[in-house]
């Protein structure tokens, strides 16, 4: 019986840039997981968004979130359609210094020929009442296997702050084991 494995495909420092494209993603895994620890240089606000999409495709995205703001809970749907977006999850210049978002995005069954779903969760660290936590689910209507994942600071023309990192992992399902009835 082979155990499930989680393998680092690539880890990337994003400091000073607006975005990163993970391309030529191996098609040998079962699922993908993207882990992000990031902050933006956007001034005049405490939080911004992380946008991400797949295969350089900018249409067909929907998502729904349950979000805690530190003082309330809200549920909302993102209607941008051109990408998925984790709203208010990216600490910006006005948030507590040296604090970063903690985000995980799962792309299950990414090589399939059906529509793609994602699950995402994240928190924006901040030493104040306003600190966001989000869990969400999304759909991309494209049926191609995912070969690239792109992410950007959601508020152009801002850049990732020093210390921002994104890591892409591949999960390979295990094999064997006994069925229990």
């Amino acid at each position, binding site marked *: 019986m082979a155990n499930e494995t989680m393998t680092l495909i690539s880890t990337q420092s994003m400091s000073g840039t*607006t975005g990163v*494209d993970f391309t030529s993603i*191996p098609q040998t895994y079962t699922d993908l997981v993207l882990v992000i620890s990031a902050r933006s240089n956007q001034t005049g606000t405490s939080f911004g968004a992380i*946008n991400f999409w797949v295969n350089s495709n900018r249409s067909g995205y929907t998502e729904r979130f349950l979000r805690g703001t530190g003082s309330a809970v809200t549920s*909302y749907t*993102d209607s941008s359609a051109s990408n998925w977006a984790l*709203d208010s999850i990216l600490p910006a210049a006005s948030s507590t210094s040296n604090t970063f978002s903690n985000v995980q995005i799962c792309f299950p069954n990414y090589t399939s020929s059906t529509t793609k779903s994602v699950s995402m969760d994240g928190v924006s660290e901040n030493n104040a009442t306003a600190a966001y936590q989000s869990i969400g689910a999304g759909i991309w209507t494209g049926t191609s296997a995912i070969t690239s994942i792109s992410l*950007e600071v959601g*508020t152009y023309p801002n850049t990732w702050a020093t210390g921002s990192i994104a890591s892409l992992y591949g999960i390979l399902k295990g094999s064997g084991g006994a069925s229990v009835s």
Partner: protein
Amino acid sequence: MTEVLTKIIVNCEDGTQTVVPLTEAEIQQREADALAYAEQKAIQEAEEAAKATAKASAEAKLAALGLTADEIAALK
């Protein structure tokens, strides 16, 4: 001098990393993304503010009916 905005292209197959300037099309897309985000953010904030106002009004009316602060909090 206008800052040149860049992105990183990572080839997961061979590990190469290339920093490239954004193309004009990418800049236009990012500007559209930012505008869409600002519009959606404004809508969300308005909805949250309206919800907070309605909540405060409801709590005031409950208090006027004689509920204690603990009883009102227990309803949340």
